């Protein structure tokens, strides 16, 4: 057991730190979503030029081939530098890795570079209004047509859909096959009249997500990733990439929020309140447990390819901690914590979805019970 960095790890970290210091794009412009998005697109180009986009991708596909530890170090430095997220997060974290893992040569040739450069933004079309946690019950249908498929249905909880060129889309190509079969993984061109994107407003007031309505939208055969009918296993890979990629960012994000909360406590002079102290201590313990759990997962994955039992906990822990942290912050703020334009109020409301999005806490508990503890399935 050794949590110190090796020489090469330390060198990598120093290089990243140094690069961020020199290339930080300044504060992200707020207020106009378009402007903010273009800012992040340009920031991703800078990252790409610096050789930092597609950090985990193999070098042959334009990535850096960084180890898991290097990815973690990079994320930590990105957090420490308070750098913005690149524009094409889903392309980098999910789209590219899936194409690399399951795509054919032509697809690799076609899609990877524009992901890295943020020329083409990617979004994900998995969830549907009816399917929820039961993802495989999706109803969007693809019907064979000349040289491709015509797809009809509705997707929901799609980020960046209004900016995206490509959508990773799951649709049912065989109505008669069992639930998990008969699903195919498509890359849908969003630039067609048959695709309608509507913003989906949340209780926070913002429209972080979209709904997508498909009315015989066309996808040519060559835009299928993997085999027809094999989309479920390709999707599972995507979701694994999502969890790993976003998980590392989550630890960094929570750590920074905790620092802000410490400042808030000092400003409001409530640091002597025993219940505030108690809750802050519990949060610190939870944050450290989550950070250390991520390190354990990293170690296990690098050694054996298989993460340990703690790996299923990260998303669950994140939801618990973020909800408690924002709850405490808004309590400390009193009525200010009810104001619509207060940042912590936004975070508080937004955090209520943390135990739902990307796997509900209930589903995560099922997974832990069944897959980690080996308890019988309830079906």
């Amino acid at each position, binding site marked *: 057991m050794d949590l110190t960095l090796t020489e090469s790890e330390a060198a990598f970290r120093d290089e990243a730190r140094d690069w961020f210091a020199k290339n930080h794009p300044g504060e992200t412009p707020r207020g106009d979503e378009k402007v903010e998005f273009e800012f992040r697109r340009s920031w991703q180009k800078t990252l790409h030029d610096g050789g930092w986009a597609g950090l985990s991708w193999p070098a042959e596909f334009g990535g850096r081939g960084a180890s898991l530890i290097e990815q973690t170090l990079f994320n930590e430095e990105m957090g420490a530098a308070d750098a913005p997220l690149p524009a094409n997060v889903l392309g980098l974290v999910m789209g590219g890795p899936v194409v690399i893992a399951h795509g054919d040569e032509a697809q690799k040739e076609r899609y990877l570079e524009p992901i890295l450069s943020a020329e083409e933004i990617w979004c994900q079309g998995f969830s549907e209004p009816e399917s929820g946690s039961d993802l495989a019950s999706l109803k969007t249908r693809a019907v064979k047509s000349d040289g491709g498929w015509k797809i009809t249905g509705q997707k929901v909880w799609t980020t960046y859909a209004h900016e995206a060129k490509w959508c990773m889309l799951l649709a049912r190509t065989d109505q008669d096959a069992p639930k998990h079969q008969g699903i195919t993984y498509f890359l849908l061109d969003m630039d067609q009249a048959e695709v309608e994107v509507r913003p989906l407003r949340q209780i926070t007031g913002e429209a972080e997500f979209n709904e997508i309505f498909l009315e015989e939208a066309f996808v040519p055969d060559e835009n299928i990733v993997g085999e027809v009918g094999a989309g479920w296993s390709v999707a599972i890979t995507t979701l694994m990439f999502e969890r790993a990629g976003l998980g590392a960012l989550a630890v960094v994000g929570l750590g920074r929020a905790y620092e802000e909360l410490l400042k808030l406590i000092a400003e409001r002079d409530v640091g002597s309140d025993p219940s505030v102290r108690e809750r802050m201590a519990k949060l610190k313990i939870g944050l450290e447990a989550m950070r250390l759990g991520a390190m354990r997962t990293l170690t296990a994955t690098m050694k054996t390819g298989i993460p340990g039992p703690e790996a299923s906990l990260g998303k669950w822990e994140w939801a618990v901690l973020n909800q408690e942290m924002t709850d405490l912050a808004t309590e400390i703020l*009193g*009525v200010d914590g*009810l104001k*619509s334009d207060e940042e912590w109020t936004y975070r508080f409301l937004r955090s209520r979805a943390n135990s739902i999005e990307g796997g509900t806490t*209930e589903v995560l508990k099922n997974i832990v019970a069944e897959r980690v503890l080996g308890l019988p399935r309830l079906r």
Partner: protein
Amino acid sequence: MNFDLTEDQREIKDVARQFLESRCKLDDVRKAADAGSYDEGLWKEICELGWPGIATPEADGGQGLGMVELATICEELGYACAPVPFMGSVIDSLVIAAGGSDEQRARWLPNLATGEVRGAAVMVDSSPWVAIDTEGATVVVTPDSKGVGRVGEASELEIVPLDLIDKTRSYGEVASTDGFGEELPPEHYQGVLKSQVALSAEMLGLAQRAMEMAVDYARDREQFGRPIGAYQAVSHRCAEMLYAVEETRSLVYYAAWCADAEPETLPLAAAMAKAQASEASWSVVSSSLQVHGGIGFTWEHDLQFLLKRARTDGRLLGTPKQERARVADLVGV
């Protein structure tokens, strides 16, 4: 001994439910919230029904009923999440009836009871000081920085509109109330305690509604081939909501009864009711959101109105933490 509404009280509650079910659907709440104003038509009808004066003495132009009757109305208004300036007017009435001079009573109570005059009330007396139902209010009841109760014309007070998450009610920030209007004697405090009970009854209604929405959704929504309400992760969560709601109901109506029949118990009963209602209404609405999943998190879904009002109500007239500290004092810890 009889812990149940009388037939008359039950009738008041049922009529209120029916009226609000037809006149104040959640779609109407949404319209008012989107417009950032009250549902004036609804308010007019409510005034015609005499609700604002239900607990105001007959001699002061009210219906002369008690806190239990008022609580049933507050519960139903909470259940409907009605966008009307009811609470501010009622609080003003309760406080002035408890501690106002003859002149003050004569000046305000009859007009508050008919709704001819609307009242705002300062509900948070620490930075920032927050008043509710400030929009269109003529009279304001408030403590000052020494904790002395005061009543006066809204026009004499500088009120800056506050944009809180709850859009079903108007809120305003008040810089200072020292020297404002006229002083109220300590007796007015019984009215403040009653106000806590009224607000707690509103939160009970919010929680009841959020629970019903969760249960309905859990019965309808299917996942993995069965209604989600058949999974204990959901059904036990709903059972826990019932636990929270029914405990709140017991404590709220007990406090209302104490206000009418056993005023010496009211300080403890009101503090317990407010602590419980604040805590339970938030836990139930947020738990209901978890049952609803993503759909409950959308702007299109009506749960947000209950969620935001419950969170806000819980901070008014004493947070759970403050009220529990009071309970500890009163039981002699």
